[in-house]
């Protein structure tokens, strides 16, 4: 047993190092090792000639372009010739246009199509010129039970523990509660592709989906994309239809715990160009327009039918430019302008309020550093300017902490008395790293083994101006940290911490505004079951403990839950 130091990094390292050593020795007991023996490349390795000893290798000829040749003695003895896990990866990487098989490890070999040739199988191969139909997506079900407290002025005779499902909490939840799924349909070839996604998200009361059109099954994304062959150093891509476009997320592969600071969703299109400025430098340019059209409304829509129309039309123009160096350093500027048009004519007659048009501008600077093997760091300063932005409804899909549009951003961060006028500044930062990838360096750890996966995120924000005096010149923050210790190919333990601290103003019973800090912090421990080291499925059992300030847990008739139990499962295919 190695000596373990007190610090958590050392502890984790001590836990991981034996696993590293075991993997390097090629444990025949583990599942991946079996697969290596069975797979084609591994057989070929066995059949190939043994590696030559270092002394037999001639030094390379040194040229002006190449680095000085190493003496033969410096050359390390050969390592296993084939990849350590020779199971065939099938283009399963994030961002790939192809998916691995249903619930399978991304390393699983591809499956042949079903007999008849009409329906390609999950994970079926793609010929570059072939027109192929693909089906993919996700199924998720997370149910939470919150252990509540007896409310004041409750039902007479009520006593004992109250359970809430979904849980009654404030603050970020470690899981997407409720049942839901997406079914993605894709047809096309490498040049042109049509895509549509059928989605359902039924948080809490599943039966809501049958009559609530906003949360029920819907097609929210459908588009046509064209990717012509490169023109010299320029690669182009065009996309038209209804689809989301996300920008400025500091997390891994452009995502992360707190998501993108700018997400646009509507009917429209984007044109993207990537230009090689040199062997190590690329330029990125993009322009897009998206619209969420509505119709004039002469009367207020009732909520009994849950009409999705809001009477607010929005059009968003957005432009982006970026540069990358060595594919390690990325800097991008994102600018968006959303104009909302208030078409609620009934406001005039019924409420004697004049409909008002609104505007919203977003400017973000996305900075990212991929510092392999030490992980990736993303930092995105962002600025929002709102002018009567309660009339900006759609178009801007996500902003600060998954908050939608000008109306929601105004309500949450500018105050209900602001009329959607103000300014917010935020800095979204995230650092992701894998401890095994660090410890195994310079060998590349691909995830097939014990690992500690860490994501740390921090998102401070400042409401630098607001027409609501209770929110003017206030600040707050979000924070998040997730740790997943992958113990084996089928089991992980997780620990997550989330927190938020926001300014909140409420009117008391006398009509006086009270201002305070609504803070919520939570810790979650969990067990995760999965079918392989890197499989895209998981079953989760978790317990969360929430802590609130009195201003957050402010309704004695409806006290928030402190203890939350979660069971859930997700599978991508």
């Amino acid at each position, binding site marked *: 047993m190695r000596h373990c130091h007190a610090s958590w990094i050392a502890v984790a390292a001590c836990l991981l190092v034996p696993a590293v050593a075991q993997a390097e020795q090629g444990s025949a007991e583990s599942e991946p090792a079996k697969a290596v023996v069975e797979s084609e490349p591994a057989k070929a390795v066995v059949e190939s000639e043994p590696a030559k000893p270092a002394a037999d290798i001639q030094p*390379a000829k040194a040229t002006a372009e190449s680095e000085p040749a190493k003496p033969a003695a410096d050359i390390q003895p050969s390592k296993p010739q084939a990849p350590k896990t020779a199971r065939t990866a099938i283009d399963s990487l*994030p961002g790939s246009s192809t998916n691995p098989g249903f619930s399978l490890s991304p390393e699983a070999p591809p499956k042949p199509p079903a007999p008849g040739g009409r329906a390609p199988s999950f994970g079926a191969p793609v010929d570059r010129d072939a027109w192929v139909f693909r089906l993919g997506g*996700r199924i998720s079900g997370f149910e939470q039970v919150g252990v509540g407290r007896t409310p004041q002025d409750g039902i007479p005779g009520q006593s004992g523990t109250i359970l809430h499902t979904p849980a009654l909490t404030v603050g970020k939840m470690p899981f997407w509660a409720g049942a839901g799924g997406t079914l993605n349909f894709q047809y096309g070839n490498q040049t042109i592709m049509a895509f549509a996604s059928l989605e359902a998200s039924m948080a809490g009361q599943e039966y809501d989906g049958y009559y609530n059109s906003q949360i029920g099954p819907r097609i929210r994304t459908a588009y046509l994309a064209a990717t012509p062959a490169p023109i010299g150093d320029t690669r182009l891509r065009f996309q038209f239809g209804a689809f989301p476009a*996300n920008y400025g997320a500091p997390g891994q592969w452009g995502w992360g715990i707190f998501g993108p600071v700018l997400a646009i969703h509507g009917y429209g299109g984007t044109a993207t160009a990537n230009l090689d400025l040199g062997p*190590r430098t690329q330029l990125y340019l993009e322009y897009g327009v998206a619209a969420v059209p509505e119709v004039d409304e002469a009367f207020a829509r009732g909520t009994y039918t849950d009409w999705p129309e809001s009477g607010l039309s929005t059009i968003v123009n957005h432009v982006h430019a970026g540069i990358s160096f060595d594919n390690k350093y990325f800097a991008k500027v994102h600018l968006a302008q959303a104009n909302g048009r208030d078409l609620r004519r009934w406001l005039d007659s019924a409420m004697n309020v004049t409909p008002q048009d609104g505007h919203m501008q977003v400017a973000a600077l996305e900075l990212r550093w991929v510092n392999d093997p030490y992980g990736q760091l993303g930092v995105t300063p962002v600025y929002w300017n709102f002018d009567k932005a309660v009339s900006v409804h759609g178009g801007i899909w996500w902003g600060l902490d998954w908050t939608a549009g000008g109306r929601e951003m105004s309500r949450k961060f500018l105050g209900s008395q602001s009329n959607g006028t103000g300014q917010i500044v935020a800095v979204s930062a995230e650092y992701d790293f894998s401890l095994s990838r660090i410890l195994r360096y310079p060998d590349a750890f691909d995830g097939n083994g014990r690992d500690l996966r860490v994501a740390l995120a921090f998102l401070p924000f400042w409401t630098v101006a607001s027409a609501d005096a209770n929110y003017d010149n206030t600040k707050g923050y979000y924070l998040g940290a997730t740790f997943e210790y992958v113990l084996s190919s089928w089991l992980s333990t997780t620990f997550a911490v989330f927190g938020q601290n926001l300014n909140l103003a409420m009117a008391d019973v006398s009509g006086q505004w009270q201002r305070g800090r609504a803070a919520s912090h939570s810790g979650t421990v969990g067990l995760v079951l999965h079918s392989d080291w890197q499989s895209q499925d998981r079953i989760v059992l978790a317990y969360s403990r929430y802590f609130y300030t009195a201003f957050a847990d402010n309704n004695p008739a409806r006290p928030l839950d402190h203890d939350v139990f979660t069971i859930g499962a*997700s599978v991508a295919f």
Partner: protein
Amino acid sequence: MDGLVKFARDSLKPAAVAAIGSVQCSVVHRRGFASCWRGRLQTGRRWGFVGALAFGVACATMPHGATDANMSRARSGTAEGWALFKEHCARCHGERGESVSTAPRIMGDGALPEYPRERNMNADPASGDPELLRLRAQTRPAGAPWRDPFRTAQDLFGYVSKKMPMPAKNAGSLSVEQYWAIINFMVLAHGVQVPPEGINAGNASSVRLQARHP
């Protein structure tokens, strides 16, 4: 870092020209920005069009892929590798690795970068589904790029032998010797010096791919 500095210097030139032009407009010619620049733009429109056309033609005709000398060296160095490359790789990547489709360039200047290019996440059908993205993120170590770095011929072999040739059903379908032959051809055509006995499992880790970019 030198490259970054050089690029920053080159990038600042247009900004400097614009700034100088603005000063000329307002100070030297005593004219407003708008009228001054309007005149400049009218004059420059013709040249801008010609420049854009020339730029497009230059881009379209800019040579990519392996140089003649390196191709000749690679063909003679490993005939088997050349034959296998033509059969399995050239259809998408081009005989010089210059790319004849949406496949990346794999030989010559700018090819085989150590770290992979950033992917356009909005081109991913999963981009609107955070839960799906989270599940997909499990397929790689946290913070790692979407493929492992290409530092040596061994790294290239590791990737090619797992992922190639396309289509995916053929990935890993060649023998180890055939993969090494292809790697030898690619590395030679890329312009990297290889050991006299060729690249094999014993020395691949010592053949650096980025050595051609000092």
